[in-house]
């Protein structure tokens, strides 16, 4: 670790109605990877948005390379050498990698309004070479995987000669091998003396990549520890202010043999190959696999969100034809997307409407009149039983935390009396405290006889929750394991069984 690069002291930030940061501090040295962790709403992103000029601080000091500075805009931050790579990548999919990297500062030809494509391609090639990245600068960003797109963002940051690089949840959408690649590049940057702020929910990852860890909670600075000296339990208890113990799966010893959902020979050109499986009543069936293994595609196909080429679906022994999500819902199948904000919720609308969105039929009277009292009592019931933290039923869903948003989606399907629930990455973007609540909820649902498919990329989650595990790779089911047989190693073996 080198000298202190950035030092933030006494940072204050208030939004209307919310004291987002109070007396926050943060220190970054050159050549270190400094992880910033905390539950959702702890203030990590706000703090980093102040550092990168997105928000203005209300009070406090930022000292950068020994000098107190003001950062009025993201552009100013970039010129100072402070770059951020957002969780949602900010690339223009229709432009090439090189065009994206040099957008706004393209090299010009002699005639000034002509862009010198050759020059920017060459510069990009040099950047990629520096990162030991085998990528053609002229390839369209939309043709790249998320991981490669992220590399393009990193290259863009480097092209500004950034000395500080903030990465917000960089591994959220990456597979294990892609994460390794990302870590390789992060380590390289660290050796070059770049200071890296690494925001992540995945604590196991921090052990692998970070040098120091700063924990925030409820807008306050809690403490900074050297990664070597800290245990995962210690970090988690700093985050939540209490100690959470990992529990092993609660698998009920039931001889329930009723099959809730059976899928036979499901095919979708290019993405799903001959998938067959059974889901028993009251079971949590884990779907493991790497990103792109086809798990989400299977879920969407069962749910009627995407068309299938062939295959049969049976719900409680009865053959069903599902052509659209509304067919699936009629048969009691609910799908909780991995991308809640895009596919699960109408963010701008209130809790009440979101909860009844799938079950409106129950509340319609003469001429389509909505029975508001019914809507309210149903919504109120689920807010209470699912312990959704909201100031009221009319609160817009976008103002809730990730965990509570997820519960709203669960409420939506329960209100519709769905008996088969497909959870796609149920705890993505949800903080540690809320995670265990979601786990408890899944167990409760299974106990009540709901049948659950749980797609997850986090192996500990699969192992902790699943009564049975199905592993997919490249659109096929490559393995089935009972809870007793399942280990991280065995799952990974099946998940990487490429040409089976």
């Amino acid at each position: 670790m080198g000298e202190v690069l950035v030092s933030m002291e006494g940072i204050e930030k208030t939004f209307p109605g919310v004291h987002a940061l109070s007396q926050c501090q943060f220190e970054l040295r050159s050549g270190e990877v400094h992880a910033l962790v905390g539950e959702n709403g702890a203030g990590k992103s706000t703090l980093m948005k102040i550092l990168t000029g997105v928000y203005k601080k209300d009070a406090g000091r930022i000292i950068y390379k020994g000098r107190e500075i003001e950062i009025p805009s993201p552009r100013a931050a970039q010129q100072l050498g402070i770059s951020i790579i957002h969780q949602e990548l900010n690339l223009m999919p229709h432009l090439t990698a090189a065009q994206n990297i040099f957008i706004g500062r393209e090299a010009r030809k002699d005639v000034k309004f002509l862009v010198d494509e050759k020059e920017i391609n060459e510069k990009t090639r040099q950047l990629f070479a520096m990162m030991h990245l085998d990528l053609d600068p002229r390839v369209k960003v939309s043709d790249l995987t998320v991981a490669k797109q992220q590399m393009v963002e990193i290259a863009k940051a480097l092209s500004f000669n950034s000395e500080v690089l903030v990465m917000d949840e960089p591994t959220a959408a990456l597979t294990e091998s892609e994460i390794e690649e990302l870590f390789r590049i992060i380590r390289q940057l660290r050796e070059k003396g770049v200071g890296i702020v690494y925001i992540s929910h995945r604590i196991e990852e921090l052990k692998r990549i970070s040098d120091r860890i700063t924990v925030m909670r409820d807008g306050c600075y809690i403490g900074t520890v050297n990664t070597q000296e800290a245990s995962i339990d210690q970090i988690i208890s700093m985050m939540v202010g209490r100690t959470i113990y990992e529990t092993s799966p609660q698998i009920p010893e039931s001889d329930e043999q009723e099959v809730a959902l059976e899928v036979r020979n499901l095919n979708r050109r290019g993405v799903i190959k001959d998938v067959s499986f059974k889901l028993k009543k009251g079971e949590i069936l884990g779907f493991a696999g790497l990103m792109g293994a086809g798990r989400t595609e299977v879920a969407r196909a069962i749910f009627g969100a995407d068309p299938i080429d062939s295959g049969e679906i049976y719900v409680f022994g009865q053959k069903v034809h599902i052509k659209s999500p509304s067919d699936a819902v009629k048969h009691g199948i609910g799908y909780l997307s991995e991308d809640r904000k895009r596919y699960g919720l109408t963010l701008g609308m209130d809790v009440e409407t979101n909860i009844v969105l799938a079950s409106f039929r129950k509340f319609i009277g003469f001429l389509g009149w909505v029975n508001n009292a019914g809507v309210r009592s149903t919504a109120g019931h689920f807010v209470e039983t699912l312990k959704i933290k909201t100031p009221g039923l009319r609160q817009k869903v976008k103002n809730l935390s990730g965990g509570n948003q997820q519960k709203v989606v669960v409420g939506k399907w329960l209100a519709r009396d769905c008996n088969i629930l497909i959870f796609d990455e149920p705890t993505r973007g949800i903080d540690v405290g809320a995670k265990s609540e979601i786990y408890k909820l899944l167990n409760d649902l299974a106990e009540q006889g709901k049948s659950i498919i749980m797609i997850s990329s986090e192996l500990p989650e699969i192992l902790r929750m699943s009564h049975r595990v199905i592993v997919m790779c490249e659109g096929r089911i490559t393995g089935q394991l009972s809870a007793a047989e399942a280990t991280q190693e065995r799952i990974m073996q099946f998940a990487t069984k490429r040409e089976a």
Partner: protein
Amino acid sequence: MEDKVIQKNSLFRSDATQKLMAFGGLIVLFIAFSLASPNFFQFDNVVSIVLATCVNGVLALGVTFVIITSGIDLSVGTVMTFSSVMTGVFITFWQLPLALGVIAGVLAGSLCGLINGLTIAKMKIPPFISTLGMMMVTKGLSLVISGTKPIYFNDTPVFRQIAMGSILGSIIPGFDIPNAVLVFAAAAVVASLILTKTVLGRYDFAIGSNEEATRLSGVNVDAWKIAIYTLGGTFSGLAGILMASRLNSAQPALGQGYEMDAIAAVVIGGTSLSGGEGTILGTIIGAFLISVLTNGLRILSVPQEWQTVVTGIIVILAVYADTIRRRKQ
């Protein structure tokens, strides 16, 4: 305590502010014009403002539903004309009973809306293009069907009473408010109830807020979009009846340009073009704002060309105000 603050904020939710601003603007215009000309704040003039608002207002009601889904309907003006022409055909040429002719005329508008809905929801053509096509089709059809000549309702004097008679005036002497205003008021109440109380209204907002999430909730989004565009067409049909009744004739060359006034009224009223937000009350205020402006400027002898310029500027300012509000949020 924090909870309290959030709840208080939700009282002043988004569209309320914009509506308040539009309403404030309306009052300011009213006072300014009253001060500028003694002829402005007269019973007859106010009635003529209200009457002038009716057609655009009814059109704008339908457009509100469409824009809340984050769609657009460019065809409302010419669909309105098409409905007038069809009403003329039904009543004057075919000599259908008046009530039947009127209902069939409104349904002609619904049919156009239905086709809009089908092309948008089933053929997946962007609303801008679908309704642009419908705008041209109905414009052409109106001219073809009518033989480019106005169709008069001289054989059915009662037809003119639909808009221009005054039931109120016959009950309360001197209070001669034309029936068109009652029709507009009734349509507005119905629209507001549909938007706030029925499932169609809820899905309208849900689709505009997040169409894919709504679809994945098992809602038949295609069917509801078709219903919403059909509703928009129905309001255009109703506006067509009002228009024809006022002029005592179906004028086939009229209509184009009305869609822009209707969209302007909706936008001034705080309905977001990106969908998910909007109110009928806002739209009504927006429609009144446009007619007060037009009327006031005319009384002040500002040439008509300049009236259009001013309306254009108001639309831009209204959307600008909306943008600033959004940025602050």
